[in-house]
């Protein structure tokens, strides 16, 4: 079975957990600095007061002047999400996170350990903890698992048997489908508002009218779709934080702080001589918001000057004075050194560059991004049966 664990409005829940005094009150996520003044997610109490996610800030305050706004905190939310993923991994689940608040995992491996499917799902909910209001859906397909998770009450699991998938999906709204708002609107104008109504239409007619997106949505509404989970590799990372006594906007001070962070991280014994390939720079902004930028290096390096050079331009993108600066090193790899040889074997430089290129592609696009084409039935009249792509390990 594939399970989907969902924490609705994660970006709002994460900062709210740090402010328990706002529990039960009408609260919404404030617009991000420098972006359109539109509200993010909002609490149930805010919705009952007439507030809706995506509403203009001025309209929301006119509707309910007592609305509390919480600053967006993408760095904090990402940190919390990573903590939850690790708790799930420690409970034995190989997870595939889709976005903050939504993660898939295969239950088969843990079912025997936990004593059944229900107990495995309970184990996942326990790993996350009750404070997040997480819910789990399980089914044989990813989409059905996601749909089940959206319907399940907080802290509970809902399992959909294979034979019941279509019946279960039928009354659910189209919002679950990966369609653009325009496409959803188009379907709504045609009187199609539920998954069952879409599933009953002829597939060819849907594909003709809505194109490839529509054909995919139709397949999902039929209870078909992807049935595989690609678990992530848990990131090995080091992080250092520097808190300023008072908010800093001066570029020179920030550059010095960055240099100090680089030095402190490179001196950490856990690094064990390994060089980072991925860097993430985040900041806690004055007023409570946060900011985060990630980058992948062309080649892993532990040279402080090169790390500073790569990161310094990002500092100019900080939207507000900074109360705290944080640097994370990820994808730590063993350095093989670049000692020159007197006479290099023919083609060795090319092979080395090729290997390095492949490593970069994997770091940026995932382990399955580099494959070998293996011919399995080159004589076949069916083009897709002639060859397969096999992920490379070198």
């Amino acid at each position, binding site marked *: 079975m594939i399970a989907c664990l969902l924490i609705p409005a994660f970006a709002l829940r994460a900062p709210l957990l740090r402010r328990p005094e706002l529990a039960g009150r009408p609260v919404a996520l404030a617009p991000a600095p420098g972006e359109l003044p539109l509200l993010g997610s909002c609490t149930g109490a805010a919705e009952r007061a007439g507030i809706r996610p995506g509403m203009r800030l001025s309209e929301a305050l006119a509707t309910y002047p007592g609305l509390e706004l919480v600053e967006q905190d993408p760095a904090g939310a990402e940190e919390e999400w990573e903590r939850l993923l*690790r708790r799930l*991994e*420690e409970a034995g689940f*190989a997870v595939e996170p889709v976005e903050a608040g939504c993660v898939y995992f295969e239950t088969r491996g843990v079912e025997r350990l936990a004593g059944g499917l229900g107990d495995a799902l309970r184990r996942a909910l326990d790993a996350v903890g009750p404070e997040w209001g997480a819910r789990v859906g399980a089914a044989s397909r990813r989409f059905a698992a996601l749909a089940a998770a959206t319907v399940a009450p907080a802290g509970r699991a809902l399992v959909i048997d294979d034979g019941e998938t279509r019946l279960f999906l039928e009354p659910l709204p189209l919002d679950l489908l990966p369609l653009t708002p325009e496409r959803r609107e188009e379907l709504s104008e045609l009187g199609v508002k539920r998954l069952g109504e879409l599933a009953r239409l*002829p*597939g*060819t007619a849907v*594909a*003709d009218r809505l*194109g*490839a997106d529509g*054909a*995919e949505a139709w397949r999902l509404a039929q209870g078909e779709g992807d049935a*595989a*989970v*690609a*678990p*992530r*590799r*848990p*990131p*090995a*990372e*080091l*992080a250092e934080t520097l808190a300023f006594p008072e908010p800093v906007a001066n570029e020179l001070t920030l550059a010095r702080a960055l240099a100090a962070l680089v030095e402190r991280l490179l001196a950490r014994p*856990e690094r064990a001589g390994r060089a980072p390939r991925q860097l993430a720079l985040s900041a806690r902004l004055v007023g409570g918001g946060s900011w985060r930028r990630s980058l992948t290096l062309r080649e892993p390096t532990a040279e402080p000057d090169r790390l500073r050079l790569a990161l310094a331009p990002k500092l100019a993108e900080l939207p507000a004075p900074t109360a705290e600066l944080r640097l*994370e090193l990820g994808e*730590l790899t063993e350095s093989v050194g670049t000692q020159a040889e007197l006479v290099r074997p023919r083609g060795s430089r090319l092979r080395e560059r090729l290997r390095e290129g492949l490593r970069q592609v994997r770091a940026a696009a995932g*382990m*399955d991004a580099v494959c070998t*084409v*293996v011919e399995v039935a080159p004589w*076949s*009249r*069916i*083009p*897709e*049966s*002639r*060859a*397969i*792509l*096999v*992920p490379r390990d070198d």
Partner: protein
Amino acid sequence: MVAHPRVESHSRSARRLNEPRPALVACEGGVPATVDRVRVAALREEWRVVDRWWTEEPVRRRYFEVVLETGRNVVVFLDELGGRWFRQSA
């Protein structure tokens, strides 16, 4: 934060090359007139593939190689069993 102590095994699997992708095809007189809303300028070739009829997953396709108005060469086929159009490199 310290390095994660557990080494996670990454499940990876092989996948097919050149899988058919759904295409939006409008026909005139049984041959494609537009492919993904781009007009067909010329029909270069047409052939049929009938295979695996002895299995539970038979294949019955009518392939068309066409040149679009944009100058692109495209191969599309009609899955005669499912009634749907796909794009594929033949």
